């Protein structure tokens, strides 16, 4: 009796559905199963490219540099169990960055701001190593992580701890975490550019608490609050601020403290009739630099059978400007203590459209490894017109970009 793979997959899906429903039922009668460490060794590799659109010729000086950033990222990881209650994961990342970056904003003949790009093409690589460990108990999970990242002019070391605690027969989960990062910056060509410091450092500390509640077996709602404190040299050493009529540019000066607060609400609902899950989320963010933002996202995870999934996504974002954001200083204006022409601190709105596809297959002839493959694409567009509040003079440096990513995971 020949049997198609499709039939076999359907029946395995039936078994999984019955088993998970039975476990939910038997759990409801007083038995909750504990979290457990991952029980297989997983190894994965992914490659992605981040590519910014060229600057429009009207947004920069005539015949100026228009190419922007390209980043290619390779990531490999391996994770596996040490005991029934402990698992560890190791991840290495190698990134190559190239292209020109926004330097300062000047004005064109009509007085409109235009972006001046760094002339020389930057070439840099970043290497990152991180290690995670998770300890599991009947009531929850406790994780620890640490990492080290280095590039030509930058190095950072970070650590963190996070955990989850289950209540109410696992229908309610409280989560929380603490983390810190210690970064050291040694700008290149500091001898040529008086605005670039020799050596600076910055630190960031963050904490979050979250609560997730199972509403019924098809839907879950989650809320979380995150606080982040940035301290030290938070400016960008490669950016400058232009003043009309001044012989040279000023440096980028930002306050040396930044308190950031964000509130996230997420609602996931599974629709059995169509084998899909809807993810809705909203985030409100506010910081002590004067930026506040709204982010809304809708993603639909659509399953086709047991092994194929497509997830389209739409995300909207809008932020107000930082108090000290300026495009450029007017003639005769007294330079303020803090100022930056960085487009990321300007008022704007952004729209992202993306899709991700995942395909899972087995190779029974090769140790019955399960392979999970994915490919994704995201297109990001930002402009003053997309902002919730109208923006009279948007930053000329606002960016549009495309991210492509492919990856494969082997589960042994």
């Amino acid at each position, binding site marked *: 009796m020949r049997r198609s793979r499709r039939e076999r997959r359907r029946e395995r899906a039936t078994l999984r559905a*019955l088993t998970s429903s039975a476990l939910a*039922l038997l759990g409801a009668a007083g038995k909750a199963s504990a979290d457990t460490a991952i029980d297989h060794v997983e190894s994965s590799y992914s490659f992605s490219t981040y590519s910014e659109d060229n600057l429009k010729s009207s947004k920069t000086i005539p015949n100026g540099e228009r190419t922007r950033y390209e980043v290619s990222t390779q990531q490999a990881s391996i994770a596996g169990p040490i005991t029934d209650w402990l698992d560890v994961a190791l991840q290495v990342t190698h990134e190559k960055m190239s292209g020109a970056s926004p330097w300062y904003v000047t004005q064109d003949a009509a007085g409109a701001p235009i972006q001046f790009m760094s002339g020389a093409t930057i070439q840099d690589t970043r290497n990152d190593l991180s290690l995670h460990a998770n300890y599991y108990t009947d009531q929850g999970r406790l994780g620890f992580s640490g990492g080290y990242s280095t590039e030509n002019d930058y190095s950072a070391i970070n650590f963190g701890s996070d955990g989850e605690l289950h209540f109410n027969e696992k229908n309610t989960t409280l989560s929380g975490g603490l983390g810190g990062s210690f970064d050291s910056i040694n700008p290149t060509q500091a001898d040529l550019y008086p605005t670039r410091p020799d050596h600076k450092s910055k630190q960031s500390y963050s904490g979050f608490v979250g609560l997730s509640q199972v509403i*019924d077996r098809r839907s879950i709602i989650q809320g979380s609050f995150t606080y982040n404190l940035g301290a030290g040299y938070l400016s960008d050493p490669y950016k400058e601020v232009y003043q009309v009529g001044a012989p040279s540019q000023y440096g980028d000066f930002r306050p040396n403290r930044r308190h950031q607060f964000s509130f996230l609400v997420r609602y996931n609902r599974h629709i059995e009739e169509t084998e899909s899950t809807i993810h809705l989320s909203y985030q409100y963010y506010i910081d002590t630099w004067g930026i506040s933002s709204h982010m809304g996202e809708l993603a639909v995870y659509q399953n086709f059978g047991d092994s194929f999934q497509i997830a389209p996504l739409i995300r909207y974002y809008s932020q107000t400007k930082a108090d000290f954001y300026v495009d450029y200083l007017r003639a005769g204006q007294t330079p303020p203590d803090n100022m930056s022409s960085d487009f990321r601190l300007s008022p704007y709105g952004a729209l992202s459209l993306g899709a991700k596809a995942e395909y899972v297959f087995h190779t029974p002839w090769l140790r019955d490894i399960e392979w999970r493959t994915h490919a994704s694409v995201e297109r990001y567009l930002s402009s003053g017109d997309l902002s919730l509040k109208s923006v009279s003079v948007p930053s000329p440096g606002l960016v549009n970009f495309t991210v492509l990513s492919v990856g494969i995971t082997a589960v042994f």
Partner: protein
Amino acid sequence: MLLGRYPFRAMGSPCELHLFGDSRERIDPVADAAKALVLGLERKYSRYRDDSVLSEINRSAGDSAGVEVDAETASLLDYADTAFRHSGGLFDVTSGSLRRVWNFESGRVPSRAEVTEALRRVGWSRVRWARPRLVLPVPGMELDFGGFVKEYAVDCVTDLCRARGIAHGMVDLGGDLRAIGPHPDGRPWIVGIRDPRAPERPMASIPLATAGLATSGDYERCMVVDGVRYTHILDPRTGWPVSGLRSASVVAPQCLVAGTATTIAMLKGARAGARFLDGLGLPSLRMDSRGRIGGSLVSDGSSDRCAAGGRPDRAARTRACPTGSR
């Protein structure tokens, strides 16, 4: 260590608990609690008792406001919903009104008109189920939990015994089984599966250490009229008893899942049922209407491989077990 055997009758079947413990004082109270649990579930989900939760639900049929159910019943309905969807509508807990026209004690085959009339009150897809409210929209519609509540009780009793310190034992509710744990020396329980046409003779012996085993057969609660065997398993699409498989047995970590799998296989019939059982990937055994035996349990006896932690050692598996449960 001593073995206590506790036979009792519940859910229309002979039941027996086999519990190992240091003393009677330790295991008797566990057996009493387990019996009380089974009888409590029977009382709660019996179609024949007016004071049961199920009867209360069935009395609400036709009322568009429906009825609000407790958390355990809601989870059972969620399970029934999952089984319905994943069986293409074959596993249907609304078959209660068919049970009224098919009375296997009477020896009478209902007329086509009676069956067609009863079918108008069958169909889980017509039920409105939004936890915790259930609406049976058609007057006379009846839920019947007979297809899975016994298996559910087996898992509940297993959990209760383990929670109360019993590490070695076997739960048997009318042939639906689950090992609480292997014998104290680590040997698995050896369970015989009956030949549907010669119930005194086992057609296979299966070792169980922690898993559940459920069997559906056309020999339980059936009637033979004019040489035709009518089994108690009714197809919710036609309203008539199924034919094709004489019996199906499945081993799964939970008895509930094993029982649902055997019921769906019986409903699918000989060919599709056999394919379904093979596709599940669970150890299984079946006999078709011509007496042919198939399934992964035919050749090897290592049925407990799906049960986490319940790996009987090789020596125990190949040795006959004199203290097996049957």
